């Protein structure tokens, strides 16, 4: 399989949000605005690429019976690393995402890719896979965040275009997250089937 195909697969055919339906908790919770969704996506992308690479590198020497604990330790290390770095250099972003940064550890996308892909493939292939799935996740979250922000707050990427009025607040809250996600999923799969 070519490296390029690995990346585009993660973007479209294996899109974590709209096709695999993985990582729903951060997807629904952090997409209150396009910027928040994108930050969460990028944070996951960072962990995904690094943990995929590290796991594919150590997989041959990890005994079967302890492979899950070893993978979780590796993933948790990268997440904590990310948390410290964000806290130090992007405190504002760290505050918005708050609790959801440590929760990347239990994001099924990360462990899912490690189990389903990284432990059977080379480091480079795993990096490509992580990049593809991570970018796919980032795009989905940004789109979902953008739709919710436009409907819910009347702004896009923080730029308000309805002059300080309130939007449809339901879309900023949990019910709107489910509604938007459902409709976006329908659209995504319709176009996927056609092509």
């Amino acid at each position, binding site marked *: 399989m070519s490296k390029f195909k690995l990346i585009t697969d993660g973007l479209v055919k294996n899109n974590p949000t709209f096709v695999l339906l993985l990582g729903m908790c951060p997807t629904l919770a952090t997409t*209150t*605005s396009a910027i928040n969704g994108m930050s969460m996506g990028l944070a996951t992308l960072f962990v995904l690429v690094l943990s995929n690479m590290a796991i594919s590198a*150590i*997989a*041959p*020497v*990890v*005994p*079967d*019976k*302890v492979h899950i*604990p*070893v993978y979780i*330790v*590796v993933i*948790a*290390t990268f997440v*904590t*690393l990310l948390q*410290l*770095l964000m*806290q*130090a*250099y992007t*405190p504002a972003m760290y*505050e918005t995402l*708050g609790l959801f940064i440590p929760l990347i550890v239990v994001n099924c996308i990360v462990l899912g890719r490690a189990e389903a892909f990284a432990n059977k493939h080379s480091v480079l292939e795993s990096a490509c896979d992580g990049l593809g799935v991570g970018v796919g996740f980032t795009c989905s979250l940004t789109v979902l965040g953008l739709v919710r922000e436009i409907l*819910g*707050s009347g702004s896009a990427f923080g730029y308000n275009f309805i002059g300080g009025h*309130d*939007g449809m*607040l339901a879309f*900023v*809250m949990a019910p709107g997250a489910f509604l938007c996600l459902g409709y976006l999923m329908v659209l995504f799969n319709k176009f996927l089937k056609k092509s």
Partner: protein
Amino acid sequence: MAVKSNLTNMVLVLGVTCLVCSALLGGAYALTKDPIDKAAAAKTEKAIAQVLPHFTEVQYNQEGRYYTATDGDAVVGYAIESSTVGFGGTLTLMVGVTPDGVVYNTSVLSQSETPGLGAKCNTDVKFMDQWRGFDPSVKVLSVKKDGGDVDAITASTITSRAYTLAVANALDTFNAISHE
């Protein structure tokens, strides 16, 4: 899956993994400790500067969680940290009080209110501006719904009440300080 799952292998692999990972994190912690402390200090400093008139020096009182700001010998005001429970969790404010007991300004240190509703306590200009020069001896410190003089944020009465209570607590702290 080349390595056999016997006790020695499992202990060895898991042990080495944990050792390497904790070493890595220890290093990262040491490297990021300074920037993290600096970011936190910068945030507090910014909040104090926002809620008090011009000052040259601040002194922190750990026990009462307040900062005394002075310009030369004169006390310019007190920046008081105050936490209450809002709608989505703890709401922490920095409240600036001048020596005559009037609120100079307030600023949100941390909040976890509903985005688009209660979280507006940090962005809603109309709500935030009413705290500038709020004089508790003239105005009643509770939201309008409860018969006070504070304009609540639309559809966020609980957050507005919590915010008001936090300011009230800060004023209590101020009274305790000024009676010393």
